[in-house]
């Protein structure tokens, strides 16, 4: 006798009624270790098997860092204008609209104020999903306003960078955001307010060449790609393949441009200790 036997005859489930395991329940690290979303969430989106840090966005970082996930978002309705009427294969406003729909985000950075282990602070966190975390006027403006908020309320600032660089569709305007954010940071420095820059995978281009490298403390997540030029551009320029680990957080630390690398599971406590020492 078979262990299982079909009792009802002629069961025909139409395709659309067939049940499927929802997408995105299982994740896999580059080394091939599978991990369930639930376990991942409990582990700050780090694989317990090989410490691989999955790319996450502002939603997750806010949840990891703010006490009880309580925070107040700043300037959350700011969106992109199209000052240059930029059209490539697609009009820029259409690109923005479809990214907003896809990601449910307004642009590539969110800023918020709240408490981290009871220390009040402001966190700006970039979202790579939104047009590659590219910096246009909105990113520049939101970071600038976050700095204004820090100045007004004497709060430390944490910026979590994750960006492919400048947003081409805002051309000259996006370039000047590098100047704008750097200028604002000088005001913060004048007041002796701490600014911590956390560089996560990937941080390149105009973001690296402005606020991301200007922290009182530049810190990074393990294995994050950090650089000015992207690896492909460098490879094409020098006509050679790049050494293993080139532009990794460890490489950048080794060359003296980071203060330390921090495992995401220890991030909140390390940041807290650092800020406590400065109080």
């Amino acid at each position, binding site marked *: 006798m078979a262990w299982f036997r079909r009792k009802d005859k002629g069961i025909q489930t139409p395709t659309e009624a067939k049940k499927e395991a929802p997408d995105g329940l299982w994740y896999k690290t580059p080394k091939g270790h599978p991990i369930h979303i639930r376990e991942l969430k409990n582990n700050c989106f780090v694989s317990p098997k090989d410490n691989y840090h999955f790319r996450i966005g502002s939603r997750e970082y806010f949840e990891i860092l703010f006490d009880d996930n309580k925070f107040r978002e700043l300037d959350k*309705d*700011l*969106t*992109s*204008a199209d*000052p*240059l009427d*930029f*059209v*490539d*294969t697609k009009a820029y406003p259409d690109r923005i609209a479809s990214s907003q729909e896809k990601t449910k985000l*307004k642009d590539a950075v969110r800023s918020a104020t709240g408490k981290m282990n009871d220390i009040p602070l402001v966190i700006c966190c970039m979202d790579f999903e939104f047009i590659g975390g590219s910096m246009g*006027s*909105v990113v*520049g*403006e939101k970071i*600038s306003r976050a700095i204004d908020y820090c100045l007004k309320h004497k709060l430390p600032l944490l910026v979590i960078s994750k960006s492919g660089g*400048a*947003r*081409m569709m*805002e*051309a*000259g*305007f*996006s*370039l*000047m*955001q*590098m*100047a*704008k954010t*750097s*200028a*604002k*940071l*000088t*005001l913060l420095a004048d007041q002796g307010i701490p600014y911590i820059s956390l560089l996560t995978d990937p941080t390149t*281009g*105009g973001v*690296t*060449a*402005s*606020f*991301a*490298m*200007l922290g009182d403390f530049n810190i990074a997540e393990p294995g994050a790609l950090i*650089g*000015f*030029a992207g690896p492909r*551009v*460098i490879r094409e*320029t*020098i006509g*050679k393949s*790049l050494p293993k680990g*080139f*532009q990794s957080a460890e490489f950048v630390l080794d*060359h*003296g*441009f980071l203060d330390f690398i921090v495992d995401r599971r220890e991030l909140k406590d390390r940041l807290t200790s650092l800020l406590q020492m400065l109080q």
Partner: protein
Amino acid sequence: MLLEFEKPIAELEAKLADMKDLAAISDVDVSEAVKSLEDKIKELKQETFSNLTRWQRVQLSRHADRPYTLDYINELCDEFIELHGDRNVRDDKAMIGGFGSVDGRTMMFVGQQKGRNTKQRQMRNFGMANPEGYRKALRLMRLAEKFKKPVVTFIDTPGAYPGLEAEERGQGEAIARNIQRMFRLKVPVICIIIGEGASGGALGIAIGDRVLMLENTWYSVISPESCSTILWRSRDYKEQAAEALKPTATDMLKSKLIDGIIKEPVGGAHTDLVDMTRRIKRAIFRHLDDLEELSAEDRVSERIEKFTSMGVVSGE
């Protein structure tokens, strides 16, 4: 070397030269023909150069005969003392600088330098500075600050060098540091885009009380070719990319991202270095006179105010 749109003008100019040669050896009176040809050339030049497309201006900004930083410095200065090195790694020849005296006024000049032939181009790394170049620039600007001399920068670069060692030595940090520190310079700072102003590599020496562009230059976040490669996935759309980026002097002024334009002689800066330099000198003096009226604190806060108001967003 001629650009495509310069050719019809050059042909007429060659014809005019022939005509003059002919007149010199024969008795035929060609003065009328010469006159009419000269008028025709002038007219064609005017027409060609007042209707340039954005891409044509990009081409002019890279013209093989275009004056480079040292050409202007040598023409401007009664005396120029070049200063070298970043005091850390080495002397970056893509970034030059030094004290110069212009009509008896001392100023610090800093700028990217391109090369005119293969050997020079290699030495100058095509005007693409490494981190030590940016650090040298900053060292010199701080030196100027120490001795209370104004800073004039000439920007002409296809970008900061995207190389292996540049990354090892912190290209991003070097540029970021320059940008931030330039906001704090107590002396007047005038930045002039004389050719190509590509991205962070340009911005690294372009934070000034006045940012000016020569008429046939471009300044943007990316070159039209690279923009074409990324957005259209082919290099063939550089003309469209140039149109979309709006990177010319007129575009940038309209966007209020620069403070002024220095007109070039008809035909472009390369057709008359002396005239072009005179125009640059006039602009430098005019702005310096205005800036020196202000206190150092006011200059710094106006500089910060200007750049922090750049950007267009919606949904306040």
